[in-house]
């Protein structure tokens, strides 16, 4: 494994993976406990429109994707607070339209066709240093925000009405959270691709939630799981010469199913113990 790190692109890839896991662990936990997975999916896919826009205008990819995702995220946040009943439908519409706009914009851009696959499935092996720096700064800012508002976010996530009664600025916090999700998603697109963003944001927190007793523990465990998946995935993809983004997600998916198996074993064991104690009591 060590000898792999003599290549700069491998070191950058590893750094990107670790950074991504850290941010995904924290933000993914908030996404899962607030049931924002579908909304995050919508943001991730409408980011595609931003990528198309960036190419059409000749802007850097990050700028276009960031602008577009942030805008659509704010619209989705407004929709999901105003008309809760049909929020998922409207997010679904924006999801599809965002992608279509992206493809159309790339179609009408003169010149050569961009390799869209790298944006769908990520290009972790070609993350430049400059992007790493942006990721570190934006990630740091996001984590600071979450740290500062941690208790407010915790209370809002558990019980929005109670939070309101306690004077927590729920509405503003909600928009902030969705904005943070948008920034996170754009950064992740670079690493694992937009198709696979959701998996990295949801699988580690989902597994972690079951085995932890507090949001902090959940965040820490999801960060560690994410790091294990990205590092392991990178190594396997290097050894077997496979697409790294897909391998990372495949590894995370395996972890997900393993945890399900572990769960049912724990449940079975609990039931066995209960039956045993009942038998002892009656016997």
């Amino acid at each position: 494994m060590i000898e792999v790190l003599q290549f700069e692109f491998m070191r950058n890839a590893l750094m990107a993976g670790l950074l991504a896991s850290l941010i995904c662990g924290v933000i993914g936990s908030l996404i899962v406990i607030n049931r924002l997975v579908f909304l995050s999916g919508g943001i991730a896919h409408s980011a595609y429109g931003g990528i198309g826009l960036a190419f059409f205008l000749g802007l850097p990819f990050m700028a276009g994707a960031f602008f577009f995702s942030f805008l659509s995220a704010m619209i989705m946040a407004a929709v999901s607070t105003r008309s809760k009943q049909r929020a998922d439908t409207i997010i679904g519409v924006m999801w599809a339209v965002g992608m279509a706009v992206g493809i159309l914009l790339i179609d009408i851009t003169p010149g050569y066709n961009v390799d869209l696959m790298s944006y769908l499935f990520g290009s972790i092996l070609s993350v430049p240093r400059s992007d790493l720096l942006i990721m570190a700064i934006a990630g740091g800012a996001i984590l600071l925000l979450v740290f500062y508002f941690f208790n407010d976010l915790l209370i809002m996530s558990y019980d929005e009405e109670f939070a309101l009664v306690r004077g927590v600025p729920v509405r503003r916090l909600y928009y902030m959270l969705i904005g943070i999700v948008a920034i996170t998603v754009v950064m992740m697109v670079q690493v694992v691709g937009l198709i696979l963003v959701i998996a990295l944001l949801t699988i580690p927190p989902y597994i972690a939630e079951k085995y932890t007793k507090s949001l902090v523990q959940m965040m820490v465990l999801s960060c560690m799981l994410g790091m294990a998946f990205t590092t392991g995935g990178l190594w396997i993809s290097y050894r077997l010469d496979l697409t790294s983004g897909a391998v990372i997600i495949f590894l995370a998916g395996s972890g997900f199913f393993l945890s399900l198996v572990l769960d049912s074993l724990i449940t079975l064991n609990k039931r066995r113990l209960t039956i045993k104690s009942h038998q002892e009591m009656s016997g």
Partner: protein
Amino acid sequence: MRNIVAEINDLCFSYSGKEVLHNIDLVVNQGDFIAVVGPNGGGKTTLLKLIVGLLKPTRGKVRLAGGKAPKKGVEIGYVPQQIDHNLSFPATALDVVMMGKHVPEQRLMFNRSRKDRKDGLAALEKMGIAEFADRKISDLSGGQRQRVLIARALVTEPELLVLDEPTASIDSRGQTQFYQLLQGLNKELTILMVSHDLLSVSAYAKSVACVNRRLHYHQAFETSGELLDAVYSCSVYDSCPVTVPFPDSRTSELSKEAAND
């Protein structure tokens, strides 16, 4: 004369063009134990949300009296309807209770946490579930979770405790214990509670407010029998103009008999 805790004057509330509450007047005095009864969709929960400030009235006002901290108004402990939608939430019973201690203006003061913890444990103790403090909330029963939510309201040191159908997920034996517990709490604080369970209401509450778009308040009673009469008479127009039709068969038969008389 007892102190007024909350006063509602000529209040109306409309939601998307439909009037949910009309001309509501209600005075909550210190030490009251008021049960709010009425049909589904009659506006009970809406009334509670107006009182705790989650909704703004279309007309009229909810005035909360000065109490301990006149500037801030009366501290209200709010116990919402059982929230089961976020069951696997990663938090222990104590964590949830300590959420009540959160003051947004002081979010950076970490040194308070030891006292918060002590207060949280004391509130759980009061609710009789201190031994579950470190259990994850998903591992608790519905009744235990309900007590956790009340403990969360108690740590805010409220003068008025507002509960929305607190017994919905508790079995009947648990309910008796639960109401006795509320009765104990009522010695120190004022209680306003939405309930479907009329029999228990008549046994434990001191007065009844019937809500069905309008509100009719049945003042304090001498005996629980009188209160029971008031509760049932709500389905008879003569004695209670709000005319609350009761959903369960036993009471609707009663009201039919009464109507035939």
